[in-house]
């Protein structure tokens, strides 16, 4: 799992690449939690290059989104999902609680 970041205003765009499973979920969580500690509260998770998401990945996304919404008045948007990944969001019902966008640009703009 490769994680890269691009900051645009107060929005941090986090680009993931690879499989988002039990082995890599912790890495993503740790990466974003470090930012949250630095009072960053607006994230867009770009998953254009994520081919697979496991339940552990789903857990990280929903937990972080919940936390950001609650305590930090922020949010975690999800963008650019591949169809197979979107299906997982759909099955689990996370598409109903998370803000999912077609691309990172749109997601970033909708923060403002």
């Amino acid at each position, binding site marked *: 799992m490769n994680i890269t970041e691009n900051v645009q205003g107060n929005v941090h765009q986090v680009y993931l690449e690879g499989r988002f499973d*039990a082995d890599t979920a912790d890495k993503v969580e740790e990466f974003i939690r470090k930012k949250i500690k630095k009072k960053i509260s607006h994230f867009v998770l770009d998953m254009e290059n994520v081919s*697979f998401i496991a*339940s552990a990945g*789903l*857990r990280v996304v*929903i*937990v972080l989104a919940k936390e950001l919404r609650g305590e930090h008045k922020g949010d975690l948007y999800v963008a650019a999902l591949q169809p197979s990944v979107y299906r997982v969001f759909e099955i689990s*019902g*996370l598409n*109903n609680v998370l803000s999912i966008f077609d691309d990172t640009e749109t997601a970033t703009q909708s923060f403002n």
Partner: protein
Amino acid sequence: MSLRTKLLVLSIILALIPLGISGRSMIQMTRDELKSSAQDHLIAVANDITRDIEDDFYHTWLGPLQLIRKSVENEYLGAKEKLSLLTEGMKSISGLVALQISVEGIEHPLFVTQEKFSTRLKKASLDPARTLMLTSGQIAALQKQKAVFAGGLTYLREADAWLMTVILGLDERTFGRPATLSARLNLERIKKRIENHSFIKTKTDAIILIESDGRKIFDPSRTDISQYSIAAAAKDRWHADTDTIGTQLYIGPDKKKMLGAYAFPSLKPFVETPLLSVIVEKSETDAYLAVRQMEQRLLLWIVIGFSFAVAGAVIVSVSLTRPLRRLTRGARIISQGDLSVRIETKGHKDEIGELSLAFNKMVKDLRQHMKELEETTKAKERAESELKLAKDIQESFLPKKFPELEEIEVWGKCDPAREVGGDYFDFFQIDDDHYGMVIGDVSGKGVPAALFMAASRTLFRTLISQEHLPDKVLTEFNDRLVALDQGSNMFITLFYGVLNKKSGHLVYSTAGHNMPYVKSSQDTDGIFQMLPGMKTMIAGMMDGMEMGRAEIDLHKGDAIVLYTDGMTEAINRNDEEFGEERLEQLLDKYADMSAREMCKRLIADVKAFQTGMPQFDDMTMLILKVK
């Protein structure tokens, strides 16, 4: 060959080479030196005797006789005076036993004898005058016109006396005709001196005087020894011009090795050729006694030196290899599993000592590791037995037997990735006609997932006894779970369906779980298809979520397959997913089999698919077929 033997051989060779070389050359040098000194000694003795004889001749005899000759040549002296001169001379010259002046043509010579010797002759019944006086014929035969003659050795057996004759020519002018002065000399002095010489110490030591014909002097039987090696050598050199002296090694009369030397007393210029030869001999054993003793002593020292070298080699090789042997022994003991070994390192501050220290440290570390390993193993065993217990408990949550019903056939199987897992399924009777079927998947796996699953199961069981509509059950389940669990951030997906076995009517709902596959003659053209999704949300994350509800009628020959994503998300070595498509195809392929057989085959297929890869997730299936 052991290291010890090698070291021993090397040390001995190292000691032996210098010892051997130096010993050998030392023995050689000293032997030569001592041999030549032994020869020198013999020569010195021969020279000593020679000088004594020469001394006798020149000073004792010839000198005084010359004086007498000078005196008697005085033409003014009468016969009486001459006789008194002879008498006086006789007294003053030691060993002189007779003096006579012979003049050619005169029958009676002037003749005097030593009184003492005459008495001795008389005692032996010999007439002194007849015995000692020389006839003119005898004189002529001996002298042969020479100015000085010396020789004519005679042995008087009766008186046991050795006599020598010296004839000096007298001035013809004084006597008017040829005349001679003859002297008879007793060689007793020389004989005594030889016999009492300090050289003679043993029976084989000998000092021999021989004449030029090889006959022994002072030997009453006048033995001819000219064939005897040393005498022959002397004879060969008899007429050499230079002063001759020599030594020789030869075999003596009684087969003994002898060392001999010879020398010739010189009477020059009076007599040209030597009168006699002095032979000195000694057995080689005696002569080279010092050589032999030295050789023995040196040999003894070499043996002692060699013994020390061998002893040193033994000590060094043993002291070098002993700690090595101890190490070997220690290593052998360790290999038998005894780690209480400790190598003695005291007194060894060399590399071997360091090796022993390292060895001891290794044993100590090994002991420590073994102890740790033992503890770890114990802890692991404990954990394993606890885990086994947990597995048994968890398995008791899952149905193993399924009701044998007239209308439907059900079978399910859970295969956890580890000992315990987070998958859940159940099939239970609600009332006479209604049966519930549920499948769930806790996020994660292992013990935490198993615990969360246990809690979820209890909650679910409680709810189904109060509520019959699946969507209501799951909505309530989610809210309760969120309320129950604050902070673990775990969630569970559930699919729950209620079937009327008589009508085949199925009402179902899902909390974020994969939708089941259904084969329906009415709705799916008799092949397996996934049920369409609905409003849903995984349970345990957010409360207030409404779950959707759907219904379907199952008829004879229809089937529904519930599963967890451990089946579809299994991965093979090429990083390919097993996938829904493959599952769908296999379901169709196995559609005519019994529910139990289908379960067994599908799980076996997934396992075969992921051969060589670890099982990432728990796999669970629940299959229901309408008879």
